[in-house]
């Protein structure tokens, strides 16, 4: 088990290196540069040249990449070009906890409600109740968050005045409810549909027929013999979904005015703020790799057949 984890982490190192090189080349190949906005303005071209020199932008790409990697090894993600005096590490340290708290809450809510919906629908397959739950789930998936988020803010914030319209409030529950709900709705839909499909798939298996032939009550057949096998596709979905949701949602953060890293990432890309984009990309890639490892470890817990190395 431990050697398996170590092996997986070792393989992760070249993967991260490859991602760093590729994303560095792609972002620097994009047209424009960090100080284009100032060029042609009333700033002295000499100052801009000095700026470019200060951030090593006058050097060839290979040297820039080398210098970036050198910093990376010591844990230095570099300075932000757009926000003078702030390092990328600082930006991530400030924004990531917000995004992570928001994202994990949304996934948690999505998982609990989605699975309950899915099991409920599977137990009543092809009935009005099943169709109702599944249509609701499809609506959750189909309506984008930039529609649901303002809608929720309008009703619960502006009309009913129950919850704050926007703001983080240091992560207070009141402030979390609306953004988490908006973020969770599509997750509930996806997880409900995956759960329903997997439950129905497993319920056709021979071992379920055996369980029924033993006269076990339906609750044991479902929770003990069916759900565990049905968890595998849910876990597969959760790995990448958690990584995605933890690295922030620009739309939610913008609408509710939350200080997450989703906004930093998009602003960084628009400003050609190379170090910010690189930093968050590396964070996302690392999360994906770690979560995929966790997913594989959970598979081994769920299905003893995968346990042998």
């Amino acid at each position: 088990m431990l050697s398996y984890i170590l092996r997986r982490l070792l393989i992760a190192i070249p993967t991260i290196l490859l991602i760093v090189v590729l994303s560095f080349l792609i972002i620097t190949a994009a047209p424009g540069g960090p100080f284009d906005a100032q060029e042609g303005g009333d700033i002295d071209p000499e100052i801009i040249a000095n700026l470019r020199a200060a951030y090593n932008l006058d050097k060839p790409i290979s040297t820039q990449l080398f210098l970036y990697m050198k910093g990376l090894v010591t844990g230095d993600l570099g300075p932000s070009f757009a926000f003078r005096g702030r390092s990328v590490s600082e930006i991530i340290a400030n924004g990531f906890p917000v995004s992570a708290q928001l994202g994990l809450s949304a996934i948690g809510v999505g998982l609990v409600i989605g699975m309950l919906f899915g099991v409920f629908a599977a137990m009543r397959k092809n009935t009005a109740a099943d169709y109702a739950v599944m249509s609701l789930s499809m609506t959750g998936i189909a309506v984008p968050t930039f529609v649901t988020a303002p809608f929720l803010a309008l009703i619960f914030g502006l009309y009913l005045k129950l919850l704050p319209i926007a703001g983080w409030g240091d992560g207070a529950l009141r402030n979390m409810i609306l953004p988490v709900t908006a973020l969770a709705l599509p997750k509930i839909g996806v997880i409900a549909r995956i759960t329903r499909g997997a439950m129905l798939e497993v319920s056709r298996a021979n071992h379920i027929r055996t369980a029924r032939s033993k006269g076990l009550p339906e609750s044991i057949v479902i929770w003990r013999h069916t759900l565990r096998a049905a968890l595998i596709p849910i876990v597969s979905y959760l790995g990448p979904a958690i990584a995605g949701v933890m690295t922030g949602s620009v739309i939610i953060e913008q609408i509710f005015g939350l200080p997450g890293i989703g906004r930093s990432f998009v602003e960084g890309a628009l400003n050609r703020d190379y170090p910010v984009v690189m930093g968050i990309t590396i964070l996302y890639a690392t999360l994906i790799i770690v979560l995929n490892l966790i997913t594989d470890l959970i598979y081994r817990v769920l299905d003893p057949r995968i346990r042998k190395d």
Partner: protein
Amino acid sequence: MSVLVCTDLNVRFRTDYGEIQAVRDFSLTLAKGECVGVVGESGSGKSQTFMAMLGLLADNGRATGSVKLDGQEILNAPRSLLNTVRGSRVGMIFQDPMSSLTPFLKVGEQMCEGLMHHQGLSMSAARARAMEVLELVRIPDAKRRFNQYPHELSGGMKQRVMIGQAIMCKPAVLVADEPTTALDVTVQAQILEILEGLKAHTDTAIVMITHDLGVVAGICDRVQVMYAGRVVEEGPIDDIFHRTRHPYTQGLLRSVPGFELDPTQPLAAIAGQPPAPDALPPGCAFAPRCGYVTPTCATTVPPLAVRPPAQRAACVLEALP
């Protein structure tokens, strides 16, 4: 004393192409400790007959008729009643041991859960019974096997566990649905020996569903032969083998390879295919494949009529040539 009495069981399935009748007028009386073989090709309705009795049909299946277990009607009974019958008074073994056990639960847990549920036993009491049963089905090193997962067992072992799991509650009836089909020949023999042992040492009545007349010959007291959803011949085992009254049974017997077989002669086979259940011929379903076909066979379905001393056959011919 009859434990199971099934009368005029009919099983129908609603499909997108209309209604299909899988079983027609099936009747069976099963005495305590008796072993009855139900023989037929794939699709003859033999498995669905018993799935219907225990309420295990697919969602689109409907059963009519009567099935009485110790005098109590169980056909189409509510699930709460069926759950006190299944696994407790009627045990079932299925064809494919590879996929018939839950892959992520330990063998012992799966064996014990039925007994614990039906009789409210503790895990340790159920475990004691499981050890007894594992010995009965001849699983060596029972303590270790108890804590293993199904994938750690061979196919033969798994089928023994299936048998063991089915007899945990000492059922009155054991339905074995092709218990040896998926196993290789030496393992088949071991499984049959275990079932013979059960028959000899317990009161459990056994229904052996199979397409293999060799299996029937070794263990059964009586046989019912099914073709296209109907019983076409039934009777004591010796009569069926030596005084065959239905051309289909005769065809089945002739297609069993034996040691005395002349290797230069091709193996006898019944020509043609069984009819699709949605396109049965108007008369006798076997008529298109029958060597003794008469003009009446194409128009009338022969009833299952008594053939003295103890047989019944559904054929216009009183005796086969």
